[in-house]
Each structure stands twice: as structure tokens, then as C-alpha cells.
């Protein structure tokens, strides 16, 4: 494993991290500035942005990194399903769905001896 040192580390982070992300944010401002709030194009942009975030969510659940890599897939999917059921029963309060999903995962991880 490599660790960067001295001023070069900060130049590296500024170019490969800062510039690499803010570039897209600036383009987003320039594009968003031309969109009217009630336009069909904005509806499409909303759909693309939401689908992108949803794809990130699915990857975090299906292909996690770290500790959860060793946990069974059905446990992770089961936790999300339990959370979703509690969410819809509990009048769509995010806290209820999140607490249920995490509780089911924690019990499952404990049962598997994590």
C-alpha cells in the first residue's frame, strides 16, 4: 500500500479529488441555469439524477466493501425488505424504516458471529 507524503499529497488530492468532482458540479450549474422549473427537460434530468443515485444504492447493498463483504447477500436484502415493510406500515417515516433495517442486519451479523 502506498501513502503520499508532503506537498505532493495535497496537489494529488486537489487535482484527482477536488477538480475531478467540482468539474461536474460546475457543469451542473451551467446546465441547471438554463432549465425552467416546469420544463420536461428538467423532469428528465430529475429522472437521470435519481436513477444514478439508485444505482449507487443498489451497488452498496449488493457489493459492499469492508466487513459486509463477508455477510450473506440474503441477510442484506432481507434487512432492506424488512425496513421497507416497516417504512410503509409506519406511514413512510424514514427513521422507522432505517431503524428496522439496521436492527435486522445487526441481529443477523451477531447470529453469524461477527
Amino acid at each position, binding site marked *: 500500500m502506498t501513502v503520499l507524503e508532503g506537498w505532493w499529497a495535497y496537489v494529488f488530492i486537489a487535482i484527482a479529488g477536488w477538480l475531478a468532482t467540482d468539474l*461536474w458540479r460546475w457543469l451542473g450549474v451551467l446546465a441547471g441555469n438554463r432549465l425552467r422549473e416546469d420544463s420536461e427537460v428538467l423532469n428528465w434530468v430529475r*429522472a437521470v439524477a435519481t*436513477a444514478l443515485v439508485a444505482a449507487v444504492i*443498489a451497488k452498496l447493498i449488493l457489493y459492499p466493501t469492508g466487513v459486509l463483504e463477508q455477510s450473506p447477500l440474503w441477510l442484506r436484502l432481507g434487512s432492506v425488505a424488512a425496513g421497507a415493510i416497516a417504512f410503509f406500515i409506519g406511514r413512510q417515516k424514514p*427513521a422507522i424504516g432505517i431503524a428496522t433495517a439496521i436492527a435486522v442486519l445487526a441481529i443477523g451479523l451477531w447470529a453469524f458471529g461477527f
Partner: protein
Amino acid sequence: MDDSQTIGSGRDWFLTGMKGIFSLPAIILMLSFVGFCAFTAQAGIPMEQVVFMTGVVWALPAKVILVSSILGGANLATAFIAVTLSSIRLMPMVAALVPEIRTEKTPTWLLLVLSHFVAITAWVFAMERVPAVPRERRIAFFAGFGITLVLANMLLVAVVYQFVAEFPPIVAGCLFFLTPVYFLASIWSSARHPVIYVALAVGLVAGPLFYWLAPEFDILLAGVGGGTFAWLAERSWRQRKEARA
């Protein structure tokens, strides 16, 4: 004309935005940052670099990829490409947020500066809360929330870095899982346009599908392809409903 009597001053709304640090999404993000901090501490990235990264990159998935690139010994160009490809989603996110928060008088430079504070959490939070904020004050509200959230997490990283090297695995696992579960619940409960529900469902399926088909560009393809499909489906449904009415 002074309308601060009726809708509150910019400072009041900036403070209201700052108080968002005590909201559920902000707390979940801070827990995720504790998890990220543990990851970098174990990898041996110096604390000062982690704090700097938190401030200048901000988006958590981009930072995870940046750190992985550094650890893997990638050169500058390779790391830049990996991070920038994973961050394309920031563009439509910002483009969807800008029409919600600007007024005709909002200068573009201010939007460019504030766009830095957009990452998934701040985006979900802002899309959810700004409709309740008077339009003239939405910029102040978002600035208050975004700036406070970044500074608080830089401070958090600096403070907890030395304590997090060894987490019990069950805690680390649950911290990691908070993020996807929170995004799901929050996007669903805050959706104000029918197309959001369709896009969320399609994206969840399209993400793994494209990961299987073309793992290099999966998120991009799932977003553009899945989002366009969701938009077309919702639009044709809407038009049929209007034709019947």
C-alpha cells in the same frame, strides 16, 4: 421594498439551514464519516490529508475511490479518471437542484461556489426541504446547511481519527449499511414528482444489471439509460391520463 418582515431575513434562513446539522440525514452522514475515518486510519493516510480531502472533495463515494487509488499506487492521471468517472452523477444532481433554489437575480458565481457543497446527503436534504423555504431565501438556507455540514465533518474527522482504528466488526457493518438504507427511505418519502418513484425503482434494477453487463460504466449507463426509460414510461402514463381526462 423590504420583504424581510414577512419571509424572514437571509441571516435567519442561513441559521435555519445550519440547524439542519441536527437532522437525521446529517447525523447519518456523520456516522458514515466515522466509518470512512476508520477506513483511512487503518490504511495509514495521515489525518491532515483526510481532513483536507473531506473539505475539498466532499462527496463520500469519490473520496473512497480516491483513497483506493492512492493506496493502489495509481498515478495522478489514473486517479483523476477513476474519480471523475464516478462523479458524473454530480452534474444532473446539481442541474436538478439549481432551478429549485435560484431566483432570477441569483448570480452564477454564487451558484458555482455553493455547488461544491452538493453531495448525495445535501442534495436529498435540500430537495426535500426547500419547498418549505421562501424562494428568495433558499440560497441562504442551502448555504447554511451545506457549509455547516462540510465544516462539522472536517472537525469530526480531525477529532475521531485517533479513536477509530479498531471498530467491532458488527458496528462497522451497521455504519456502512446506514447510507444506502437512508438514501432509499429519504428519496422515497421526499419525492414530489411521480417520475422520482419510477426512476428510483428502475435505477435499483439497472445498477446491478449494468454492473453485470459493463462494469466500467455501470453507474453512468444505469443513470442515463435507466433514467431515460423511467422518464419515458412516466411521461406516456401521464399523457394517457391527460388524454382520458
